[in-house]
């Protein structure tokens, strides 16, 4: 299958706008679940406002949140897909720029030292583009995630040691959720990365935070910790917007990798309640959009 560069640019443009406007069904279901269980009066009101906002965004064809985030594109290349890799990266960048200029969107991206905003949502190394491979025949998938800063500013890494054990993992996650409080726009998806190197550990946490609600860690031990921590964080009382209540997180997600005999790295990255993502899938039949 040959993928046209122009089609990728169009998809990259469309994905950014779609992700900012339409919340995935699994996140909407997550709201319904949390609202049904909430016991705090203020928290019920906050959750209801969030649900109203989702409907207003769809009715008025507007962005869910003003934060257009740092644009992230995750590309998964299946088998027998023919494309020019360099051109693909250029096309994604140019689609991202066009979405920003043509919609228009607020460019939330600046140089880290000069703080200059190019008003393109692009800059050095941004949009973030990750490329991976899968065994799906003749399929190219592009996932777009606008990662908001309220949640991203609460990212944590701890290089624990083996003697600290699994207890250190659980305590660290709980304390990160407490430290983040209302700053991350809870209810959140708490992404936990375990193992790997320090950089891989943080990447795993981001992957976990942006995973579909209802999905589980493919490792049995990881899935077990996910379940325990998902229950535990909602007994802390942080609540939606940090104003108290039960609904602190939709879920805790864990992703893990093998690590060194001397290491026990733990990373936490959170996704806010506007857990936005969109995907475009290219097959020989054409391109289709989803979550």
């Amino acid at each position, binding site marked *: 299958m040959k993928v046209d560069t122009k089609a990728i640019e169009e998809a990259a443009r469309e994905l950014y706008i779609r992700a900012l406007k339409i919340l995935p069904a699994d996140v909407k279901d997550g709201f319904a679940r949390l609202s049904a269980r909430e016991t705090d009066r203020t928290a019920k009101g906050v959750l209801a406002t969030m649900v109203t906002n989702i409907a207003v965004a769809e009715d008025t064809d507007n962005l869910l949140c003003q934060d257009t985030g740092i644009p992230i594109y995750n590309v998964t290349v299946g088998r027998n897909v023919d494309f020019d890799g360099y051109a693909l990266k250029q096309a994604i960048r140019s689609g991202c720029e066009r979405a920003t200029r043509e919609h228009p969107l607020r460019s939330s991206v600046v140089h880290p030292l000069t703080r200059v905003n190019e008003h393109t949502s692009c800059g050095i190394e941004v949009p973030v583009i990750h490329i991976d491979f899968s065994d799906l025949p003749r399929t190219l998938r592009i996932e777009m995630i606008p990662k908001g800063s309220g949640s991203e500013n609460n990212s944590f890494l701890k290089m624990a040691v083996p003697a600290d054990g699994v207890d250190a993992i659980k305590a660290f996650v709980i304390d990160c959720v407490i430290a983040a409080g209302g700053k991350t726009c809870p209810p959140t998806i708490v992404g936990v990365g375990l193992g790997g190197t320090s950089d891989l550990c943080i990447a795993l946490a981001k992957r976990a935070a942006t995973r579909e609600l209802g999905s589980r860690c493919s490792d049995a031990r990881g899935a077990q910790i996910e379940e325990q921590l998902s229950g535990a964080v909602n007994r802390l009382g942080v609540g939606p*917007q940090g104003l108290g209540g039960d609904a602190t997180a939709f879920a805790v997600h864990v992703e893990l990798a093998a690590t060194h005999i001397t290491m026990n790295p733990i990373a936490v990255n959170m996704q806010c309640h506007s857990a936005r993502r969109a995907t475009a899938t290219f097959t020989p039949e054409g391109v289709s959009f989803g979550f």
Partner: protein
Amino acid sequence: MAHYVMKMPVDEGQVRRLRVNDTVTLQRTLFGIRDATLIALFDRGRTTRFDLRGHAVIHTAPNVKKVDPSPQHPAGYAPVCIGTTTSDRMERFTRPLLQRNGVRIVVGKGGLRADSMAAFREFGGVYLAIVGGTAALETTWIERIEDVDMDDLNPESLWEFRIRDFGPLLVAMDSHGASLYDVVRHDVEARREKVLADLGLKPR
């Protein structure tokens, strides 16, 4: 718990009347500020031509569209999506906003800390919590962008919004030393040990 409708600007007495858990709907005028605006004003000595005395400011940086100036868009900007950002990053600017510029109300999400609390008490100010991440809804409360200053910082300019029925917003920090965030923080701290014990951890 009372509900107040406040036509901006307001005086000290009106703000001192507010207590945590009251709700407020703002009318008429709201100013938008952000990290870069505050850094420029208080770290770099820039000034604004806007008179903020008695006014409300919101922690924001909107999505806007540049248009030809008209009665509907006097500043040459149409609102696209206007929401609220995390207040905590701008904690150290609450005091000078109140003391030097006479601001009475800060609207934001996630709460502010001890020095803001002290400034609210000292000068007569409050923090109103809006539901973060609900910008599509918030945008419907904004009639137009009336004016803009320090626009070289765009989107982190100093914005003047014309608002209508902006709220209800929750009084989360008042001028009498009460903060809902402190209440939650103490409650969470008290629950932490049991949550860890339920996860099988021994107290350390």
